[in-house]
């Protein structure tokens, strides 16, 4: 069980997160949805301490860390337990797919090169890119890059995998392959916290959906509950907006 408590984050005068609490069960896939600019990315980044919140704690494996003050070894340990997949993949551009996956194993987990390479190959195979092991990021499509990024994160065996709009930078045709990869990881039992605009994917893969707006969690429930019967007005309005395309005015 992973417990996140009281995360608050303010940019200048803009209170983006206002004391968010979230408890995630082992194996849960929690999707965060909400309007643009509402702090979804910021929340993920605070959990991984890429952003420093004013207050907030995280408990993984019974160990509690203060996110506002964590540093040094504790921070490294926290980050070893979490993995992050970014919207723009953020692969190391000067390293091949294989080296990208090996990097964390060698530098952070201090593995021997052979051992790291074995694991990296396995992970690349899992995401279906073993034949691209020697390709540099620039030689791969966006979808392939994102799959390597997922392999890189999974190789570290994180207790919690964070994914921030992992498909929104992709061409529509490439979205599928990445979603398949994420679904596979979910089925393998990884605990995940993901932000996504792909509502049909969220509906399909998430065990729990959270709607974030105004620094607060406005809805929290199964996809069926949240999508099917939102209680909050703002949530309803949001669904109306993104569903416009399917409305009568936009169909022939």
């Amino acid at each position: 069980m992973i417990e996140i408590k009281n995360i608050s984050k303010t940019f200048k005068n803009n209170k983006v997160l206002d004391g968010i609490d979230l408890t995630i069960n082992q194996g849960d896939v929690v999707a965060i949805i909400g309007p643009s600019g509402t702090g979804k990315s910021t929340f993920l980044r605070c959990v991984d301490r890429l952003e420093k919140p004013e207050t907030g704690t995280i408990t993984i494996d019974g160990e509690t860390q203060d996110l506002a003050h964590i540093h040094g070894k504790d921070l490294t340990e926290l980050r070893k337990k979490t993995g992050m997949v970014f919207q723009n993949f953020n692969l190391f551009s000067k390293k091949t797919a294989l080296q990208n996956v090996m990097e964390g194993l060698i530098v952070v987990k201090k593995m021997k090169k052979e051992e790291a390479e074995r694991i990296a190959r396995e992970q690349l195979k899992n995401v279906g890119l073993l034949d691209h092991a020697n390709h540099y990021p620039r030689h791969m499509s966006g979808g392939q890059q994102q799959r390597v990024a997922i392999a890189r994160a999974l190789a570290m065996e994180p207790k919690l995998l964070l994914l921030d709009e992992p498909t929104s930078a992709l061409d529509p045709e490439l979205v599928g392959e990445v979603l398949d990869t994420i679904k596979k990881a979910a089925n393998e039992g990884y605990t995940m916290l993901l932000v996504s605009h792909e509502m049909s994917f969220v509906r399909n893969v998430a065990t729990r959906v959270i709607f974030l707006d105004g620094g607060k969690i406005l809805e929290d429930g199964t996809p069926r509950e949240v999508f099917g019967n939102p209680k909050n007005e703002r949530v309803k309005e949001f669904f109306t907006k993104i569903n416009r395309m399917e409305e009568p005015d936009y169909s022939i």
Partner: protein
Amino acid sequence: MGKLFDGKLVFTQIPLLLKYLPVTMELAVTAMIASLILGLLLALVKIKKVPVLKQLVSIYISVIRGTPILVQLYVTYFGIPMLLKYINFKCGTNYNVNGVAPIVYAFVALALNESAFNAEIIRASLESVDKGQVEAASALGMNYFQALIRIILPEAIVVALPSLGNAFIGLIKGTSLAFVCSVVEMTAEGKILAGRNYRYFEVYISLAIIYWVITFVLERVISYLEKKLRVPEDAPALLDIRDTEVE
């Protein structure tokens, strides 16, 4: 004799001048290396915004860049001994720097000067590195130093290389100022030769030819390195997975 311009001399002098090329290059290379290390440190202080130190570095860079390098050579070469002499005089101590070879002063002054300029180049190149990659490294659990060595520097070097190359070319020519510290390198030797036969114009032309050739070669080397350091344009062949089975 009596020619106004002795064209032959321009070429016959070149071998004499080239004898001092090693001094020029030794001074330039060592000063460059030292300035790169120091420059990196200065750049890191500015990037990491280390309190107090950051202000000191700004002042240092401003002063070094704002004053002629000739003065910096003067201050290191004459100022330091003068200060010691003054201290000895006032306090009866007996510090002594006569054992230090002049080339050391020249090296120190050139390295300090170059470091201020390189610090800015290095800072700009470090900051040009895609923040996403640095975050990805942090997210994996690397500390800043690990990310710097493994991820940031390999990216930054490609960006910095052309500017650093230019700085190095400038430094090679700049070593000629070391003559004020009695270091005889190529240009100084040129002046000495001209002091013998009064043929300043000819010797300057000889020097120009040599410097130009050095610059030309260096420019080639730099653009070769740039190409080498870049990720290859073409994708490699796909691996045959049957051969590379995961055991």
